[in-house]
């Protein structure tokens, strides 16, 4: 395999890594991005050929706790630059959670009121976090899913179009551009240019589009793969089954090298396994991303697979994600 660049070498066993003190920040917005890239080792031990590695970008390290801080900041800053977001305007969007948290947090810092539309079955923690940042929530019918929130959001805006600035993460190119400008370059730098496969879950498609475009601009051979639920009826919060959903305007399937369908149950069990073997608690979409990254990695003889763990798991402790945990532990104990 290719020579590993010095910045990318594993620390020798027992060596203490150098601890770099955190920088001083003038605003929480300056803390967005530059998240760590973690090699997944114990979980892949003995499963992967020696020349194949998997890394995960830990987006839970963003101040708002998810990857969505990146597009949210870029959409709002672009709105200000273009004069569409200005004093007196209210930020309005439909979101089941992480984008809402990011918009609420960034809106608070920038001094704009925020109103969000979400299905009422979004997790309790998410609703409380959003409200803690001072934002207001409009609830849509849970049976209509995220498409129901999109429709209600349009209705609210159409009743008073002058009042609102709608970032519209599904159709705003600033969403994908955020990843082109930050996530992509970070992964390129953190892998010393050795990334061969990029695997990311798709909700709006922003992460996979923007990051994928940047990586392909550096090396056209890099494979960019989107992860989606294997059925329209699924439990992978934040993900869209594209064929059965309103397709986001920023999503261009022809730019992908492939799509990987993942089942909800296997993703949930991967979340449990990541906690117990790698010491990281993540959300269900990260479980799906890891299952997909493993599928890709197992098909390779050599390569560097990078995926994105979109958020951390603390927001999901009250959700269905943990319903099967005891059963899973029992099954594992018998092995």
């Amino acid at each position, binding site marked *: 395999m290719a020579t590993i660049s010095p910045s990318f070498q594993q620390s020798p066993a027992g060596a203490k890594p150098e601890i770099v003190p955190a920088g001083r920040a003038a605003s929480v917005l300056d803390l967005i991005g530059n998240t760590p890239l973690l090699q997944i080792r114990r979980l892949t031990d003995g499963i992967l050929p020696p020349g194949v590695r998997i890394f995960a970008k830990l987006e839970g390290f963003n101040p708002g706790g998810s990857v*969505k801080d990146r597009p949210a900041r870029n959409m709002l800053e672009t709105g200000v630059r273009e004069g569409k977001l200005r004093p007196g305007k209210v930020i309005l969007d439909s979101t089941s959670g992480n984008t809402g948290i990011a918009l609420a947090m960034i809106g608070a810092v920038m001094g704009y009121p925020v109103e969000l539309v979400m299905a009422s*079955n*979004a997790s309790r923690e998410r609703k409380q976090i959003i409200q803690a940042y001072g934002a207001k929530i409009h609830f849509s019918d849970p049976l209509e899913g995220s498409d129901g929130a999109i429709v209600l959001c349009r209705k609210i805006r159409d009743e008073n179009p002058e009042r609102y600035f709608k970032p519209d993460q599904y159709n705003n190119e600033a969403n994908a551009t955020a990843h082109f400008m930050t996530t992509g370059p970070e992964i390129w730098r953190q892998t010393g240019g050795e990334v061969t496969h990029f695997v990311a879950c798709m909700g*709006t498609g922003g992460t996979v589009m923007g990051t994928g475009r940047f990586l392909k601009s550096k090396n056209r051979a890099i494979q960019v793969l989107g992860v989606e639920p294997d059925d329209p009826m699924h*439990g992978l919060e*934040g993900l869209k089954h594209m064929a*059965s959903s309103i397709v986001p305007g920023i999503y261009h399937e022809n730019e992908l090298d492939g799509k990987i369908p993942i089942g*909800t*149950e296997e993703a949930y069990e991967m979340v449990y396994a990541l906690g117990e073997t790698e010491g990281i608690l993540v959300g269900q979409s990260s479980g799906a991303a890891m299952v997909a990254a493993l599928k890709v990695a197992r098909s390779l003889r050599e390569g560097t697979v990078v995926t994105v763990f979109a958020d951390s798991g603390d927001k999901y402790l009250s959700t269905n994600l943990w319903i099967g945990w005891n059963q899973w532990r029992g099954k594992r104990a018998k092995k």
Partner: protein
Amino acid sequence: MAVRVRVPTPLRRFTAGVDEVPAEGASLKAVIDDLERRHPGIRERLLDDKGEIRRFVNIYLNGDDVRFLDQLNSKVKDGDDISIVPAIAGGR
């Protein structure tokens, strides 16, 4: 026992796009079996291969989560309302 079942968007491909369908049965399990007869394919989305309610599926009987009732053995009466709700809203 005749009941009304509210169907979420991702399952409406089994109900010809209809959001509320009738079904019959004396227990939730019987209602789901009846739904399967009327709308083949729907049961597999609700129950796993052991016949238990899938982890990401919430079923409400007159507004109460059946996980806190008697699960699939929950008794059903004439005129009851059953809602099937995916555990997530989808879309970040």
